[in-house]
C-alpha cells in the first residue's frame, strides 16, 4: 500500500548513478568552491585521499624510468587479467565498474609491532608519489610499458615495524562476491593471495601503486591500491590489496595453488626457464600491431642489475 502522505518520487528526481558514486568528490568540490561551508559538508574520514578529479597533479619524476615507448593507455586498461571479473581479457574493463574502492582499508597482521586496520588515507598520507615507467611482463608472454604512480612498498612496511620473525610478506585481494561476479567460479583459490620474501618486499623497485598515466587506477587495473613488482611475472603484482600479513614461513599463492608445476613462488622473469607449455624466451609487446615481431625477453625483465643480488646462489631453475 503506497504511503500517500509523501508524494511519489519522480524519475527525474532520482540521482544518476555516476553522481551517486562521485558524491564525495562532488561535495569536496563544492566545499572547495565555497558553495558549502566545510563544516556542513561532512565527508567521512575514510574518504580516499586520491585526487577528486582522478588526476595526479604533482608526481615526482623518477630518474630510472625505462626509455621504452609506453603502451597506449587504451590497451593497458582494456587487456587485463582480473579473474574476479571474468577470465576473458576484455571482461575486467566491461565488468569491474561494480568494484567499490571508497571507503577502502587495509588490515595489517602478523609479525609486526604496529598491526591493525589502516584506511587508505592512513596508508598514503605520509608518502610522496612518484611516476615510474616500468616494463611489465605477463607469464603469458605479452608485455607492456606503463607509467605507474606510487611509492616504494618498503617505505610503507617500515611504518608497521616488522619483527625479525617476518621473513615473508603475504598479500590478499578483496574478496567480495556482491561486487565481484567472477568469484562465483573457483578458477583460482579465492581470495587472491600473493607473497614476497621480506627482501623482495623491501626492495626499492617494489612499488605500492595507486595510479597509471597520471590518473587514479581504473578498477580493472587493480584500484585503488596494488603492487607492481617489475622483475616478476605480472600475476605477482597483486591488485586491490585489503590485507598485508608478515609471516615466518613462505605463504601460499593463488597461482601456485592452481598449478604448482607452472607457477612458482618466485616467478622471476627468465628467458631460460620455460613455462612447461610454452617458451619464455620472447614476448609480444601489446599494441605493437599485427605484423610486429616478438621481442627477446630479458632476465629479470631487464632489472637484473637491480635485483640479481637478491638471488645470489639461488638455483633459478629449481626456484622458478
Amino acid at each position, binding site marked *: 500500500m503506497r504511503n500517500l502522505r509523501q508524494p511519489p518520487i519522480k524519475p527525474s528526481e532520482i540521482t544518476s548513478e555516476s553522481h551517486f558514486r562521485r558524491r564525495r568528490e562532488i561535495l569536496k568540490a563544492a566545499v572547495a568552491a565555497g558553495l558549502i561551508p566545510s563544516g556542513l559538508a561532512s565527508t567521512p574520514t575514510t574518504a580516499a585521499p586520491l585526487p577528486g578529479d582522478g588526476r595526479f597533479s604533482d608526481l615526482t619524476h623518477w630518474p630510472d624510468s625505462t626509455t621504452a615507448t609506453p603502451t597506449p593507455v587504451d*590497451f593497458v586498461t582494456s587487456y587485463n587479467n582480473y579473474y574476479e571479473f571474468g577470465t576473458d*581479457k576484455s571482461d575486467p574493463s566491461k565488468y569491474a565498474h561494480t568494484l567499490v574502492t571508497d571507503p577502502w582499508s587495509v588490515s595489517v597482521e602478523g609479525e609486526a609491532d604496529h598491526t591493525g586496520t589502516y584506511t587508505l588515507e592512513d596508508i598514503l598520507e605520509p608518502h610522496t608519489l612518484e611516476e615510474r615507467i616500468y616494463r611489465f611482463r605477463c607469464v603469458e608472454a605479452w608485455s607492456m610499458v606503463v607509467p605507474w604512480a606510487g611509492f616504494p612498498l618498503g617505505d610503507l612496511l617500515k611504518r608497521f615495524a616488522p619483527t625479525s620473525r617476518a621473513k615473508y610478506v603475504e598479500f590478499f585481494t578483496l574478496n567480495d562476491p556482491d561486487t565481484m561476479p567472477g568469484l562465483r567460479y573457483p578458477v*583460482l583459490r579465492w581470495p587472491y593471495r600473493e607473497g614476497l620474501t621480506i627482501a623482495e618486499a623491501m626492495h626499492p623497485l617494489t612499488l605500492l601503486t595507486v595510479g597509471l598515466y597520471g590518473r587514479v587506477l581504473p578498477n580493472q587495473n587493480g584500484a585503488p591500491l596494488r603492487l607492481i613488482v617489475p622483475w616478476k611475472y605480472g600475476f605477482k603484482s597483486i591488485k586491490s590489496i585489503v590485507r598485508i600479513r608478515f609471516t615466518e614461513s613462505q605463504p601460499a599463492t593463488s597461482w601456485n595453488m592452481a598449478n604448482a608445476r607452472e607457477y612458482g613462488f618466485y616467478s622471476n622473469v627468465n628467458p631460460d626457464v620455460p613455462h612447461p607449455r610454452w617458451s619464455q624466451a620472447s614476448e609480444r609487446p*601489446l599494441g605493437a*600491431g*599485427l605484423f610486429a615481431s*616478438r621481442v627477446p625477453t630479458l632476465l629479470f625483465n631487464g632489472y637484473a642489475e637491480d635485483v640479481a643480488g637478491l638471488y645470489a646462489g639461488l638455483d633459478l631453475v629449481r626456484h622458478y
Partner: protein
Amino acid sequence: MTRRRLAWLKGGVVLAGLTPLALLVTRAAGIGSLGANPVQEVQQTLGITALNLLLITLTITPLRRLSGFSWLIGLRRALGLLAFAYALLHALSYIVLDRRLDWPSLIVDVIERPWITVGFLALVLLVPLAVTSTNAMQRRLGKRWRSLHRSIYLIGVLGVLHFFLQVKLDTSEPLLYALILAALLGFRVVDWLRRRTRRRPLNKS
C-alpha cells in the same frame, strides 16, 4: 529440395562460413580493432572458427537421420572444407605472424609442446580428407572413401584436445566443446548399435 535450391543453400553456407574471416580482415584494416594483442586475436578466432565448423560438419549426419532431410548431405563438403581452410589459416597465422617463419623454433614447438603436436597432427590428418573431397575422388575410392573420412572423428578429438591443453586455467570452454563432441560421436555409436541389432530379426513364432 531441388538441385537449384540446394546450390543456393550451399552458397549461403559458404558465405556464412567466410564471414568470420571477412570480419578479421576488416578489423585488421582498421574498421573496428583487433585489440591489444592482434596476433593472438587472429590466431584464436581462426582456431575457434575451425573447431566450430568441424562440429557443425559433424551435426549433418545426426540431423539427417533425425529429420529425414537427406539433402543435408549436400552441405557437408562445403562445411568440411571451410573447417579445413580455417584450420590451415590458424596454423599459418601461428607460423607466419607469431613465429615469423622461425623454422628451428617451430620444429622444437611441434616436438616438445604436446598441445602443438596434437594440433599439428589434426591439421595433417585433415589434408587427405580435403584432397579426396571431390566427387571424382569419391568415385575412385569407393568403399575406402568412407573409412578414410571416418578419421574426422579422431581429428575432432585432437582438435578439442589441442584447445584443452592450450588454455591457461579456465577449462570451461574446452569442456563444453568436449561435451558437444561427445554427444555428436555418441549419436553415431548409438546409431551403429541399433543398426547391428536390426540385422538380426527377432524370432517370431
